[in-house]
């Protein structure tokens, strides 16, 4: 293949430093100095050896004297369903600001330690996201509020109830406002209803930081309902997204990603896939997955929507001057009209006018009833920004006597947060029921912290007719109370929320058995659950519960002309525009206290622990003088973590100074900054000092909040700031000097023309050994080993991988992979066993992006195994490349010899597991960040998986194919005296072994199982996708047990690699 893939600019240009970096994986020198004087040497090494000798002897003597007496304390009365050491799974629901995902909590000896998706949920089909995976740690967050407070002083629940009760009755008729994020819990809404009824004149204000006001209002204008319909990306043959990051952060990515991927799966006999156009200003993960991607300034979104509508119906006018963009719109319009009823246009703008135009487009292409369905509405976002603005006005006017805040944080997320804070001061009674001491809670007199969702009862209805139930999986850790209980207490209800919730669902479901079944399944919906439950609730639930009818809704395009006119009158953008975007892990700040999410590399920038200004290569040149075609410049930019700091100033707002990262694919006149950073220091050591807050740059125009700033100035400050990016490890040169690509990709057109291109490539590469057939035996001087019984194998479909990072976090949790903190990531000491490599190819201004999850490939002829001097890494008869941590002496030869660079070395005592005190603050190996210490507190350690060793300093570690799960699966099969089940994951069949990454993946990109079994899922995938199958770096004869399925992009022509010419 001619195409060139690159992960960084140095690699694109083959710069000297990048080559050197590639040669030398471990970049730093050992901290020793040479000296002639034996006893006065400044080195630590000799001292170290002296002390080592002494301490070993001492330890031996001490250890041989006495063994510690250990206790074994059984239960006094064993609960019936708990067997020590055996995990139980409970269905519950992850809820975060309206986002609700059905999950299973793995509870081991009373502690939830892992979250898995719930297969019974037809919305996610068992998929999860990085945020969902990481949510289990927020249960053990040391920064959680641990008791109710009044003015910051601890009080009892009884006392605060009384105090708040008195305060509320003493308002003298002033209204009570309940300020929440979107709540879609049916019983919770009833509780809120009771509360509102108890305090007449009170109101419920719904405010979402991640606002969908534009969409909601446009739908109200066009469909008469302030609601969001269901989107079905699976049915769409042509998808056009105008800046909507629907695979990462837009609306319900966990529902959309599997739908989207359904249309992207390739049937080799009849290759066809959906066509995805993305128009956007910065490079999102959705844009990275698109077939055709066009960049534009954020202020042009409206014009593009109008131009698209114009191309389809002739309405409006096409005011696009950029030729590439124009061609793109024409092409998209052509495809949309050719696929009437099978197209879908979504838009990420929060402007109701633009969304009305998008509605008009969807109406024109017949999306209603097909890809857009009004029979079930998406209830995950319901907040309208003007409601909060109205509340602030009322608060200022003194009309509001009390505000009760539930999981909402406007003091941080509202653009004019000072106005909110000032207004809140005028309110007599401010109560926060948020779980943490966030920006808003700090302003409230009364605080009753909420339970974590794993401690709560509840329900959620993210989409009408699809209910997910919640049950507690652990006793509350602290003196907290879930908000429903608090409200019920205040209205003087006789029962607690648990009883209330149970009675509510007994009423809907009919009887106790049905309720228990529903609780066990975790979901109540139209499919997949016992039909008796479904039929019994079908009539009782307001929304339709049976199969979606494909309701097109009644469209009324009356307002569209006015909307088009309004778009024309939008303020024209300046020279440089700013987009405030959300990251998949951090979101609007809800992930900022979670070290797993902070250390999750951003899929596109590969940066951790910070927000920054992303700029285009063109702007880098014009603004900072970094010419990415100049090797010296590239090296100066790439090799050191220090990045130039720029000052971004929006009109009338304080400037913000942040470091830059150059991201190809960002529009030359646009910069992007992620929200959700710069949190208050009361949120714990993880969030403290990470990034800067930019929510204040959002603006409210009377209707909706805009996350785009049309005119900003960007200036160089001359300072630098270190950004911790993940090392680009892939760089691989063969001894012969040929660069070899680690990924394979081709266009749909090419695949149709020559389906055997990849197969022929592989045949060609292995031709000296008689081709693929005899390659395994002929290509080596080592003997051939039999593979009796099980031979584990994994297949990763690059067409299905969206790069979201759920697998990375899942792997961290399952395998006790340590958090290393920013200072260590900066030195490339990150410990991710599984990383998602991001490759660019083609045009530097608008490249194509491929994501490749890369974990240990478990080579059957592994180069790492041969070089280990102590045989700490060796091969199992089941094909697993094993690590025996206790044998490892840390030579790192294996990592040096690994062509995939997937072995990670414990440079420091990240887990605090060593017996030496203060080992983590030792300047020789690096003072570890506070976030690392947070992971080692007794509370946070409760999340560790007891089945996996916590590795100590100085040993190598890497992906183990989740060997603990393999062993458990085998044991279960043996206990039941049957062969291992490694079939496909379906509703009827749960295979014995699923790796953590596989189980977390929302799109089913990863398949794992016994490759010796012809009926296993992995064998079938390999059999059915022979033409796309490849092993990374196959020609090395390392014989990986992981295979990939090549990425196919629905394009006609191949992108050509061009250097930047501007």
């Amino acid at each position, binding site marked *: 293949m001619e195409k060139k893939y690159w992960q960084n600019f140095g690699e694109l240009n083959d710069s000297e430093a990048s080559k050197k970096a590639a040669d030398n994986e471990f970049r730093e020198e050992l901290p020793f100095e040479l000296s002639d004087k034996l006893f006065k040497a400044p080195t630590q090494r000799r001292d170290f050896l002296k002390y080592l000798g002494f301490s070993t002897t001492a330890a*031996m003597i001490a*250890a*041989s004297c006495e*063994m510690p*007496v*250990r*206790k*074994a*304390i*059984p*239960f*006094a*009365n*064993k609960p019936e369903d708990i*067997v*020590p*050491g*055996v995990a139980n799974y409970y269905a519950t629901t992850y809820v975060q600001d309206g986002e609700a995902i059905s999950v299973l909590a793995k509870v081991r000896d009373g502690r939830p330690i892992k979250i898995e998706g719930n297969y019974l949920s037809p919305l996610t089909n068992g998929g999860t996201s990085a945020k969902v995976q990481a949510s289990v740690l927020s249960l053990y967050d040391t920064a959680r509020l641990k008791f109710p407070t009044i003015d910051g002083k601890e009080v009892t629940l009884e006392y605060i109830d009384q105090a708040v009760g008195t305060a509320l009755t003493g308002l003298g008729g002033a209204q009570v406002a309940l300020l929440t994020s979107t709540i879609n819990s049916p019983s919770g809404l009833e509780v809120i209803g009771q509360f509102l009824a108890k305090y007449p004149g009170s109101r419920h204000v719904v405010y979402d930081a991640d606002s969908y006001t534009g969409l909601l209002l446009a739908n109200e204008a066009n469909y008469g309902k302030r609601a969001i319909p269901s989107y079905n990306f699976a049915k769409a043959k042509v998808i056009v997204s105008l800046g909507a990051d629907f695979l990462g952060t837009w609306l319900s990515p966990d529902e959309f990603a599997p739908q989207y991927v359904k249309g992207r799966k390739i049937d080799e006999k009849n290759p066809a896939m959906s066509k995805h156009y993305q128009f956007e200003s910065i490079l999102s993960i959705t844009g990275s997955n698109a077939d055709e991607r066009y960049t534009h300034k954020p202020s042009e979104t409206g014009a593009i929507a109008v131009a698209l509508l114009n191309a389809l119906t002739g309405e409006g006018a096409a005011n696009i001057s950029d030729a590439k963009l124009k061609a793109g719109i024409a092409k998209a319009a052509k495809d949309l009209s050719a696929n009437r009823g099978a197209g879908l246009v979504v838009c990420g703008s929060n402007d109701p006018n633009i969304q009305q135009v998008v509605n008009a487009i969807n109406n024109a292409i017949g999306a209603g009833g097909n890809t857009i369905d009004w029979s079930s509405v998406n209830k995950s976002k319901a907040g309208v920004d003007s409601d909060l603005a109205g509340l602030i006005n009322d608060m200022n006017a003194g009309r509001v006597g009390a505000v009760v805040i539930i999981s909402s944080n406007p003091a941080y997320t509202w653009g004019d947060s000072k106005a909110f804070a000032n207004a809140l001061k005028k309110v007599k009674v401010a109560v926060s029921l948020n779980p943490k001491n966030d920006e808003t809670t700090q302003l409230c007199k009364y605080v009753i912290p909420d339970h974590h969702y794993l401690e709560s009862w509840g329900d959620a209805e993210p989409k009408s007719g699809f209910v997910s139930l919640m049950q507690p999986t652990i006793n509350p850790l602290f003196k907290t109370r879930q908000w429903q209980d608090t409200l019920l207490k205040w209205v003087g209800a006789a029962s607690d929320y648990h009883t209330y919730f149970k009675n509510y669902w007994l009423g809907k479901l009919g009887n106790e058995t049905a309720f228990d079944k529903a609780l066990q399944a975790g979901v109540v919906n139209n499919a997949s659950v016992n039909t008796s439950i479904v039929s019994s609730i079908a009539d009782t639930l307001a929304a339709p519960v049976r199969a979606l009818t494909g309701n097109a809704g009644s469209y009324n395009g009356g307002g569209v002309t006015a909307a088009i006119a309004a778009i024309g009158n939008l303020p024209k953008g300046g020279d440089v525009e700013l987009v405030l975007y959300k990251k998949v892990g951090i979101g609007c700040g809800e992930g900022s206290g979670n070290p797993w999410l902070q250390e999750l590399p951003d899929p596109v920038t590969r940066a951790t622990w910070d927000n920054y200004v992303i700029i285009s290569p063109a702007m880098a040149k014009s603004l900072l003088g970094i010419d990415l075609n100049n090797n010296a410049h590239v090296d100066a930019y790439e090799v050191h973590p220090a990045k130039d700091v720029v000052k971004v100033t929006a009109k009338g707002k304080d400037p913000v100074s942040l470091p830059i990262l150059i991201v190809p694919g960002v529009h030359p006149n646009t910069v992007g900054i992620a929200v959700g950073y710069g949190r208050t220091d009361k949120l714990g050591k993880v969030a403290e000092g990470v990034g800067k807050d930019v929510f204040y740059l959002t603006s409210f125009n009377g209707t909706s909040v805009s996350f785009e700033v049309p005119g900003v100035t960007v200036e160089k400050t001359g300072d630098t700031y270190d950004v911790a990016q993940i090392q680009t490890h892939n760089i691989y040169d063969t001894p012969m000097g040929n660069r070899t690509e680690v990924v394979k990709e081709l266009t749909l057109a090419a695949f149709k023309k020559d389906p055997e291109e990849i197969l022929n490539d592989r045949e060609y590469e292995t031709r000296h050994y008689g081709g693929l057939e005899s390659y395994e035996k002929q290509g080596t001087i080592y003997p051939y080993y*039999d593979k*009796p*019984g*099980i031979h584990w194998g994994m297949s990763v479909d690059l067409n299905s991988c969206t790069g979201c990072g759920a697998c990375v976090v899942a792997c961290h949790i399952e395998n006790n992979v340590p958090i290393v903190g920013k200072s260590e990531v900066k030195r490339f000491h990150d410990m991710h066993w599984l990383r998602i490599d991001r490759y660019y190819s083609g045009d530097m201004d608008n490249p194509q992006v491929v994501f490749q999850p890369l974990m240990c490939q478990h080579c059957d002829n592994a180069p790492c195994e041969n070089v280990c001097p102590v045989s700490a890494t*060796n091969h*199992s*008869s*089941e094909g*697993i490349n*094993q*690590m*025996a*941590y*206790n*044998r490892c002496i840390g030579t790192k030869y294996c990592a040096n010899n690994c062509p995939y660079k997937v072995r990670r070395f414990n440079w420091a005592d990240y887990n605090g597991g060593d017996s030496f005190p203060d080992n983590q603050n030792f300047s020789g190996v690096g003072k570890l960040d506070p976030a690392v210490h947070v992971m080692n507190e007794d509370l946070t350690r409760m999340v560790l998986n007891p*089945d*996996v*060793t916590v590795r100590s300093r100085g040993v190598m570690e890497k992906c*183990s194919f989740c*060997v*603990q799960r393999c*062993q458990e699966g*085998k*044991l279960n*099969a*043996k*206990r*039941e*005296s*049957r*062969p*291992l089940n490694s079939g496909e994951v379906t509703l009827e069949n749960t295979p014995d072994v699923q790796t953590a990454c596989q189980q977390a993946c929302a799109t089913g990109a990863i398949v794992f199982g*016994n490759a*010796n*079994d012809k009926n296993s899922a992995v064998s079938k995938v390999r059999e059915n996708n022979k033409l796309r199958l490849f092993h990374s770096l196959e020609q090395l004869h390392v014989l990986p047990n992981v295979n990939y399925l090549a990425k196919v992009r629905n394009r006609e022509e191949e992108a050509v690699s061009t250097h930047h010419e501007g």
Partner: protein
Amino acid sequence: MFKLRQLTTITTPKKYLLLFVSFLFSASLFAQDGKALFTANCASCHSVTKKLTGPALAGVESRWPSREKLHDWVHNSSKVIQSGDEYAVNLFNEYNKTQMTAFPQLSAQDIDAILDYIKVEETKAAAATAAPVGETQTAADNGDQTLLYGILTLILAIVAFTLLYINANLKKMADDKEGIPATEPIPFWRNKAYITVFTLVLFLIGGYLITDGAVGLGRQQKYEPHQPIFFSHKVHPGVNQINCQYCHIGVYQGKQATIPTVNICMNCHMAINEYKGEKLFNAEGKEVDGTAEIQKLYKYAGFEPGKPWDPSKAKPIEWVRIHNLPDHVFFSHAQHVNAGRVQCQTCHGEVTSYNEMFQFAPLSMGWCINCHRTTKVQFESNGFYSMYEKYKEDIKNHKMDSVTVKDIGGAECQKCHY
């Protein structure tokens, strides 16, 4: 080397016993189910050979006129008593008019399975008494031999020393005769040859002791601490034949066999409040009052005899842990006992003969691996191994005669370390 020899001598007869037992088990499928049913339903009050709350069940069929009658009895004993059955009424009276719990949920087949199991157990018990107790003897022999070798070596060393001395004297006498001037005799403590040999011997012995000691660091074989309650396995699974699983409930499902919780103890000890068996002695030879130990249990349980027991008042008993595996070792009882059908005694010794529990096996990696090398998996009977086509082929072609744990990866690092 020496230790290894000792190990093998111990395991060999055990294996025969194991084979014999597994033969008995496989003889009747019913007996298998029966065992489970017996453990689940009967074992809290009945033993096969011992009188507990209820009578010993050995020979129960011979005491009753027919199985049908027995079925009735198990389903509802009071009905049988009311019907005036003579044997039933006598039995009822003999056991202080304690009524047997009714088991209406057990089907006729279930009860038959239990009866079959009881029959098998009877034969086993008979066989056990007949079987010679060879092992302790062997072990003792081994100890004697060590002493023998030691004494022999010492005698030989003295003989060699005497001979050398005689030789030296003779040489001196011969030299005197021949007029060769005698050199000043060097005392043996200054003789270089002696010193060299002595140093060498000292080095070897010292080296052996240090290595042996270092290898044994952290191992606790024969560890027998005092426990908060003098719990005698000899009395419970030994004399009273309580099934191991009745108390160690996790052994079939989980990693841990689990130490029984107080409520399990109280299942029986609600009724059994005094010890009337043989005299008990602790490791130091002091007599132990069994009844007093039961009182200790009551203290933990918060139970006063004669009053109803409230389990929520119970406090856990802090036993001293005897078997400690390092954290980096994954060991699962379910894997060994359930999937592998290994007998408890293989690793824990003849628990039924211990009073206080001690660590029987060294629990060293060498010990584990040795067992994995030699132990055969249930290749034919466990459906899991049907996947191993190649081994099936090899067995058919007589290339291999059996599949050991090692053959299925039992000696690989990540079998236990991950």
